[in-house]
């Protein structure tokens, strides 16, 4: 409802432009027709008046001016009429010198050179002409009052179709590639054209996305099948140092392939969260327990969140692994003894903190970029972990912020939606 009001009040809308155009053209037509009618009525009235004046003059001269209506000599008639009678035998003049009493004069130069003239009252003519003008103005305004709203209403129909095209384009932009205007079948005007173009654009975008997804799926199949053979075969090898080397590399290869496939799925925006109500502390505890290195975990309260636990697990594992890789061992302890990473869970917020050199400036400025580890001292790792964490956080509607603590070390804070009041991000 408010949208409708705003739309109606928008004076730059096409609807009002069309209405204005219609109003201007109607006024122009009314003005032209009015002027023509006004002029022709005036001329006819002048001709009629002159004819009446001449016949009155004739009558008065015939009767010897028994009513005494004739004017004799230049002094009794308008000077202009006298001037005309000097060059012609007969002349007439419309005299408006007396306000509200216009008269038509007809005059003749008699044989002796004497001028004679007679005025005829033109008041009824003038009144009827004025009435005609008033009528024309009145009915023109009346017609405008009807036509302009009609034009605005008529403009509403194409307007509505245009708005639908705009809405559809907006939905496509927002990621709903299945949205179509569905305005193809109507009359072949420009709006149908643009609607059809928007539809075909969406078709081609969707087609490209589908083929991209198919490519990812094919790559997944082609890579995972030999990888599975490798993983299972490596598992069959007799224990030994060489076997450990092979298994380690197979594990790395497998992680890389899975990460790449995950990144490309996230890029394709085809991921949908599988939301469940889960105890946040337990999911995080399970995730860090599987990592194989010590992590200091503190959980305050028992926050329940509605999220996709598998994606949450991926985010936590990636953040903690990343922090472990770059984090330094706390002072006074030896490597492998004390946890390098501390994870805190409070309300709907998970913060992962290390004591390393912190995130590089370029990462904080531009966000995680795949295969960019940012600095030489962060050379290990392929830079996909944080990209995946960011992408997965987007899928579950969580906010992931990366920052450096003032007293040193990197802090990654994940705020889950609907997780209660947010806790301060960079607690010690």
């Amino acid at each position: 409802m408010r949208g409708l009001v705003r739309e109606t009040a928008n004076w730059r809308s096409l609807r009002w432009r069309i209405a204005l155009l219609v109003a201007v053209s109607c006024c122009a037509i009314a003005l032209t027709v009015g002027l023509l009618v006004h002029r022709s009525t005036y001329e006819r009235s002048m001709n009629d008046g002159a004819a009446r004046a001449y016949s009155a003059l004739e009558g008065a001269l015939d009767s010897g001016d028994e009513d005494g209506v004739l004017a004799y000599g230049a002094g009794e008639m308008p000077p202009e009429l006298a001037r005309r009678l000097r060059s012609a035998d007969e002349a007439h003049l419309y005299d408006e010198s007396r306000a509200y009493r216009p008269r038509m004069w007809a005059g003749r130069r008699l044989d002796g050179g004497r001028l004679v003239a007679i005025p005829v009252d033109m008041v009824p003519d003038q009144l009827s002409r004025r009435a005609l003008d008033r009528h024309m103005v009145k009915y023109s305004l009346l017609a405008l009052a009807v036509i302009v709203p009609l034009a605005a209403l008529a403009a509403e129909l194409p307007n509505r179709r245009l708005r639908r095209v705009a809405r559809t384009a907006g939905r496509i932009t927002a990621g709903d590639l299945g949205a179509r205007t569905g305005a193809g079948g109507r009359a072949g005007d420009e709006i149908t054209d643009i609607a059809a173009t928007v539809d075909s654009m969406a078709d081609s975008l969707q087609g490209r996305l589908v083929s991209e997804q198919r490519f990812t799926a094919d790559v997944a199949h082609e890579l995972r099948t030999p990888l599975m053979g490798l993983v299972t075969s490596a598992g069959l090898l007799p224990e030994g140092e060489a076997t450990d080397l092979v298994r380690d590399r197979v594990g790395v290869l497998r992680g890389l392939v899975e990460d790449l496939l995950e990144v490309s799925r996230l890029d394709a925006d085809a991921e949908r969260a599988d939301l469940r109500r889960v105890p946040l502390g337990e999911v995080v505890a399970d995730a860090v327990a599987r990592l194989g290195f010590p992590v200091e975990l503190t959980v305050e309260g028992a926050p329940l969140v509605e999220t996709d636990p598998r994606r949450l697990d991926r985010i936590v594992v990636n953040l903690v692994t990343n922090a472990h890789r770059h984090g330094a061992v706390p002072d006074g302890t030896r490597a492998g003894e004390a946890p390098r990473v501390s994870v805190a869970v409070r309300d709907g917020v998970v913060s992962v903190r290390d004591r390393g050199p912190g995130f590089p400036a370029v990462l904080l400025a531009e966000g995680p970029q795949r295969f960019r580890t940012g600095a030489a001292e962060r050379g290990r790792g392929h830079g996909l972990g944080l990209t995946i964490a960011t992408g997965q956080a987007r899928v579950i509607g969580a906010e992931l912020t990366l920052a450096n603590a003032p007293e040193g070390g990197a802090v990654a804070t994940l705020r889950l939606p609907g997780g209660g009041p947010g806790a301060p991000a960079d607690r010690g």
Partner: protein
Amino acid sequence: MPVSVLLVEDDKVIRRSVALALERYGYGVTTAEDGLTGLELFREGRYDLLLLDVMLPGLDGIGLCRRIRETSTDPVLMMSARGDALDVVSGLEAGADDYVVKPVDTSVLVARIRSLLRRTTFRPDPAPDPPPDTAPDGPAPLVFGDLSIDTGGLEVFRAGRPVALAPTELRLLLEFAAHPGIVLERQTLLRNVWDYGWDGDSRVVDLCVQRLRKKIGAERIETVRGFGYKLRR
């Protein structure tokens, strides 16, 4: 007599290595390299579990699973190299009990197989609050509308006619029957029926519920939007 597994997989290395790995865990493994051979082997022999790849030459894993389900309720585990919606959903719709995505660690595969086999040999605990008129020779069948569940003999009847349920479907129905009228969250069902932790895929639950509804009547299991499912008394 070891547990027998029929493995249908076209990739030679996977077929051999998975067979060897499972044999180390004490399973008897028969292998087939395409869907039609798999179907033939399935019809000739008896297997405790079927492990099917999705992409197979000839008859694919989904088609094979559907053919197997026409006559049998044996547990079926699908292996997909794609893990995308299409593969997983079609496999589960065709009647698979669970799926794994390649590459899968032998330990994970064995855990899935064990969980699935536990469902086949599952015996529910004695009913939590047995009706007072329980006959001494066994629990009385649980009755929900036209549905009757014999928890002793593990048989299900709808309007007096027996319903053939795959082990996971039966296990799911018993889980519902143990909590009639109570909403069970997907997470709970994943944990209790499939033995998943937080890593379970709730589509497994949704599609198994769908299959169960087709067999016992759609109105029996109610969807509680945003929470889970409940069995109507």
